[in-house]
């Protein structure tokens, strides 16, 4: 029977199928960070269990870390405790760890692919929903809760039933000024935040194939915002070229054998999907969210929608609440919305390609008066690369802050936060109420669009700036 990419990777990892269809699924890579692991290690300790495969596990701190001078340590006691707890746990259980002051430190979903830890055909988990990022390599990668973190540490497996297959095909070439972030926001706008629930989404089509790995990671990263268990893209020459030479990946003859296996993974012709969606790339414009759910999104050329035009009472009430929280008026042009803060970074858009895109817009321009703009590289190596290319100077000369690697303002767990009422153009992944700090207002968009917002002081169409 013709199989999908997901079917093949799933089947290759089934240790045992129980009578009711639940599978003992083998996990190749387990990424661990400081927020969702303390209780899992504590559970191991209480039960007298060890970590089964330290050599398949990697730990790093990212959520709690300040993105200013690291030598000064972590000021907030509770953040420091989580970081120190992870350091104690990795030492006690023999888990490989990238320390905070190491150049390779960064957001767990940036460093997995960057180091060659995440590879095609693997099962990859992490106690973080944006683990879907790694599916860009053609792996099955998904977020798990802390109990499952403990389960994987102890057994290197999970008890799971297979997800359904969903295909999102994006065909055609992307118009000028439109990026991977716009593709995924357009998809979420189309299928909604529960559109992928119970499914693994395979992204296909010429627009997806033409994306570089950074763009593919951006798309897969936000699969969870469409409710999907995971997102995947079939490995191809772009993937193999990316993997070649990664420090912790296979090399030489081993790499060639790996590639030979990876070439067998793409979905078979005629493989069927439980659900199928098709988008025409040519119709996608730069996107920006206006509400407090990622599905509340519109092209930058659009306006804030009017709740009066929504028939369903519950949906209307929800939209009214969103507009009240976001302090927006129905019918307001999105390009008339002023911003206070711009955040460029996160596991969605913290790679070198994202910083290049932002710097290209910032070059020779200035951050608008009264706007605070932060650029936070996804890893120490991304930062070093950007500095080697002189992008830090382009950005700082334009008035952007150039910071150390971490999750930063994507979520309010470290000193980078919005204050109540502040409005932020953000390249991150969630615009939930209070996500970037209590009372903060988030508009999700691409790195180029974020830079355009920084230099104009409002949500802006980056295509206008480039003309």
């Amino acid at each position, binding site marked *: 029977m013709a199989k999908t990419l997901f079917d093949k990777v799933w089947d290759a990892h089934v240790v045992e199928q129980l009578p009711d269809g639940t599978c003992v699924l083998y996990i190749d890579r387990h990424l661990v960070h400081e927020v969702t692991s*303390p209780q899992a290690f*504590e559970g191991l300790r209480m039960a007298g269990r060890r970590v089964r495969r330290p050599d398949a596990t990697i730990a790093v701190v990212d959520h709690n870390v300040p993105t200013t001078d690291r030598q000064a340590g972590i000021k907030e006691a509770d953040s420091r405790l989580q970081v120190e707890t992870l350091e104690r746990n990795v030492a006690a259980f023999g888990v490989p760890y990238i320390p905070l002051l190491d150049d390779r430190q960064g957001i767990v979903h940036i460093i997995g692919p960057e180091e060659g830890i995440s590879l095609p055909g693997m099962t990859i988990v992490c106690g973080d929903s944006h683990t879907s990022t790694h599916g860009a390599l053609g792996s099955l990668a998904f*977020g798990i809760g802390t109990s499952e973190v403990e389960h994987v540490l102890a057994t*290197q497996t999970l008890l799971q039933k297979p997800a359904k297959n969903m295909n999102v095909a994006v065909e055609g070439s992307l118009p000028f000024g439109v990026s991977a972030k716009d593709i995924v926001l357009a998809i979420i706008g189309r299928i909604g935040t529960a559109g992928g629930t119970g499914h693994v989404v395979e992204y296909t089509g010429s627009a997806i194939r033409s994306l570089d790995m950074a763009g593919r990671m951006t798309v897969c990263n936000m699969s969870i915002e469409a409710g999907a268990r995971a997102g995947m893209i079939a490995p191809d020459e772009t993937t193999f070229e990316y993997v070649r030479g990664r420090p912790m990946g296979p090399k030489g003859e081993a790499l060639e054998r790996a590639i030979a296996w990876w070439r067998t993974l793409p979905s078979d012709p005629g493989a069927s999907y439980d659900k199928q969606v098709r988008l025409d790339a040519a119709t996608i414009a730069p996107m920006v969210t206006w509400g407090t759910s990622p599905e509340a999104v519109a092209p930058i050329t659009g306006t804030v929608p009017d709740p009066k035009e929504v028939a369903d009472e519950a949906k209307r009430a929800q939209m009214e609440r969103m507009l009240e929280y976001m302090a927006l008026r129905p019918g307001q042009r999105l390009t008339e919305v002023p911003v206070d803060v711009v955040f460029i970074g996160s596991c969605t858009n913290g790679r070198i390609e994202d910083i290049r895109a932002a710097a290209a817009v910032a070059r020779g321009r200035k951050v608008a008066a009264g706007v605070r703009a932060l650029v936070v590289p996804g890893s120490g190596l991304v930062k070093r690369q950007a500095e080697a290319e002189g992008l830090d100077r382009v950005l700082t000369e334009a008035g952007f802050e150039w910071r150390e690697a971490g999750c930063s303002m994507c979520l309010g767990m470290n000193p980078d936060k919005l204050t109540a009422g502040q409005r932020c153009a953000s390249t991150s992944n969630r615009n939930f109420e209070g996500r970037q700090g209590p009372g903060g207002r988030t508009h999700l968009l691409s790195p180029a669009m974020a830079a355009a917002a920084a230099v104009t002081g409002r949500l802006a169409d980056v295509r206008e700036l480039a003309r």
Partner: protein
Amino acid sequence: MKPFTKLTAVAAPLPMANVDTDKIIPARFLKTIERSGLGVHLFDTLRYDAEGRERPDFVLNQPPYRHAQILIAHENFGCGSSREHAPWALLDFGIRCVIAPDFADIFHNNCFKNGILPVRLPRSVIDQLMADAKLGANSRITIDLEAQEVVRPSGERIHFDIDPFRKKLLLEGLDDIGQTLQHVAAIDAYEAKTQSERSFIPGIEVHP
């Protein structure tokens, strides 16, 4: 894990769709290394104002619902982050069962690991249960996991579906890891087989 068998309790109506895990427990409260003590922060921004005072209009601040053990909500409950702090906060508050038309996958999974029963029922049934819940303290709902039934205050019994494996774990309060370790020989065999077939995958080592 505390087993879940049968529960008769007050149900709190929360007629909202897309209740995300940031809403259930904001990220700033995740800086704990414990599982307990999160109940006080459950639904923090809905429950308290900027000065930390209770918002009297929020359901869990109203007398009949302060000790609610069932929560009734709309579509896509628990979307967003994978944080297990969300079910931990619900459990610490006292919620043992959430009834909604559907749930986000990771949250749904996390509930079972903590002895919380997520019940999926069609929106039309949810609307009836929501109306029941709005009647307050005298309107108790029963959840019978063994029978797979929700019993309305009127006595009407509504069947719900649940994965049999998960039902068994909940009823017996069994720990997943213990279950999986019964298959350790199969895991050993799988590892031996793939380590030769996929020997091109290196182990992780961090060199200074």
